[in-house]
């Protein structure tokens, strides 16, 4: 029983950064912007979070720094693609390349330093209930944030007027603009929200998942988050499901390596990436479904015609 609980807990920890980053990107893509810089924003959040936590000794300040770092870094993307109408694919890629380089440079002195870890929630009484106590009341704070964030984004996108406006911009920025909606302003806010989420996800990596700084520690999670959004056909609850499936794959291969299954460890390590490809194929082979769900103006630059 204890082992099952522990495995479920580690799956949740592995799924949380994927979920947060993907939820952020979902909002960005719903507004019609494709930001391929998730990996870069995530790693910047991770290095910022670790650095602030290490220097101040407070993991909470670290977490805040991770969010701010991700948001600031995404602002760079926003200025380029929204104000200067650059190609979103190329700009997103360059955001990732710059983030990987910059984080490596900033983090040089952090390598091998002990980090600080966000403490798990501990509610006297509740957290010690067998089985459910640990799962519901004993996890790290970011886990609860991730669940709340998913619910909030679901409510925002589908139950509020602003959410409807955001979705309409994603489907047709020209019509939205003609209706007097401030397309660029909405998109700025969406991109910055996505950046903050990616930063938070990175902070989770360096403050909860493995409380230390390792270069390239995001290890493609930002890209998997991007794939999750496609997999989920731009729906928050499906992102939640997808993130946990991927968390399970990630943890499963780690456990398989630890048990010494006679399969090369590299093959097991490549499972999450192969699973991403397989899942993308399965979801995209239904062309009509994909066409219906994809925000229609995704990735297209918008220059208001005055």
């Amino acid at each position, binding site marked *: 029983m204890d082992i099952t609980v522990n495995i479920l807990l580690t799956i949740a920890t592995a799924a949380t950064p994927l979920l947060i980053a993907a939820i952020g990107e979902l909002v960005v893509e719903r507004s019609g912007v494709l930001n391929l810089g998730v990996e870069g924003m995530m790693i910047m959040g991770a290095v910022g979070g670790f650095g602030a936590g290490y220097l101040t000794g407070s993991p909470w300040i670290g977490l805040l720094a991770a969010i701010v770092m991700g948001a600031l870094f995404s602002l760079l993307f926003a200025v*380029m693609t929204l104000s*200067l109408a*650059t190609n979103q694919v190329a700009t997103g*890629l360059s955001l990732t*390349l710059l*983030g990987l380089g910059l984080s490596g440079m900033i983090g040089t002195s952090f390598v091998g330093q002990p980090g600080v870890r966000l403490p798990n929630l501990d509610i006297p009484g509740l957290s010690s209930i067998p089985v459910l106590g640990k799962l519901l009341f004993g996890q790290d704070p970011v886990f609860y944030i991730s669940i709340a964030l998913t619910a909030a984004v679901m409510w925002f996108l589908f139950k509020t007027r602003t959410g409807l406006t955001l979705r309409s911009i994603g489907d047709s920025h020209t019509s939205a603009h003609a209706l007097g909606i401030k397309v660029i302003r909405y998109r700025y806010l969406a991109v910055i929200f996505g950046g903050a989420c990616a930063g938070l996800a990175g902070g989770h990596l360096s403050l909860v998942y493995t409380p230390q700084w390792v270069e390239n520690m995001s290890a493609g999670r930002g890209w998997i988050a991007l794939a999750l959004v496609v997999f989920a056909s731009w729906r928050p609850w499906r992102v939640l499901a997808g993130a946990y499936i991927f968390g399970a794959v990630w943890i499963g291969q780690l456990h398989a390596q630890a048990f010494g299954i006679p399969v*090369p460890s590299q*093959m097991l390590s490549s499972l999450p990436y192969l699973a*991403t490809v397989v899942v993308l194929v399965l979801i*995209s082979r239904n062309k009509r479904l994909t066409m219906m769900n994809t925000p229609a103006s995704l990735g297209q630059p918008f220059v208001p015609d005055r």
Partner: protein
Amino acid sequence: MMRLELVKRPQRSALFSMLSPFIAFALTIIAGAVLFALLGVNPLNAFKIYFIEPISQVWQLHELAIKAAPLILIAVGLSVCYKANIWNIGAEGQFIFGAIFGSIIPVLFPQFEGPLVLPLMLLLGMVGGAAYAAIPALLKTRFNTNEILTSLMLVYVAQLFLDWLVRGPWRDPQGHGFPQTIQFSDSATLPELMPDAGRANWGFVFALVAAVLIWILMGRMLKGFEVRVLGSSPRAGRFAGFGLNRMVFFAFLLSGALAGLAGISEVSGAIGQLQPVISPGYGFTAIIVAFLGRLNPLGIIAAGLVLALTYLGGEAVQSALGISDKVARVFQGMLLFFVLGCDTFIHYRIRLIGLALTKPDGAAKLEAAPKLKEAR
């Protein structure tokens, strides 16, 4: 509140089209100066070490050519993809598979020697890169799967596969347990161009030849026209009878083969054996090279040399000033950002709105107004 406003130019500016890579480079230098100052280093001194000292002697120029060769080879292939609006970003993986396929002969059949070995290896390298690139192409055409994500995911898979090979079945039994294959024999080694002067090998020649061939293809042949039409307007391409699916395969196979050629050239030339890591991110840096070269093969040659210099400079400042060589990646990233930003000025004029509301440039307005009317 101040606000930027883009005003579409009546036609693309030839001036900015030419100048933008240079402006971008100048802006990178300025930003780099700020960066060095923040790190507590005298920028002028740092720039001297970064950009001048690494190319002040003949043998160093050879090192530059070694670094530039894979960048140019990969980038000219990518430029065809990007012109066709097809996003292959997994060149790093295709580079690795080219290296693996090409190494089959020297690793598994080391007794096979002679003048045939090298051409066969290069051919196998191209086949390996192209085959690996065919996966995202097949998935895109058959299942409509986004090629950006699949080609990128396959990079991680390729890196892990290479790691397994050199630690497992392909490890040199006499290698004292080091994760590497046997040293390639002389007939499996890419010869140096001028052994007396430096290490540069035939890889650089391949890069130049590939760039010129692709330049001819894109500028002088129907296929190049097809690439450009499908890239700028798939609908128009369909009416002209150009197949989009065929183009996806063409672009991926071509760029994959060139990346594979770069991979086997690097392994049989500069390295001499397979190791767990054979590339300092050439496949990703080549994306920057492609854009800095304005997706033009001849521009890419120049851009490849510039980006190769950022690698050498990064190593130089690390040993001379104790700054992390990651500074090279930062330079590369900034360069791409500025290039993309400067490209905006080719198609748009920028106006500041808000504080400047009182007096927009009257002359420019007068000039633009009648043209706007025509356009409507």
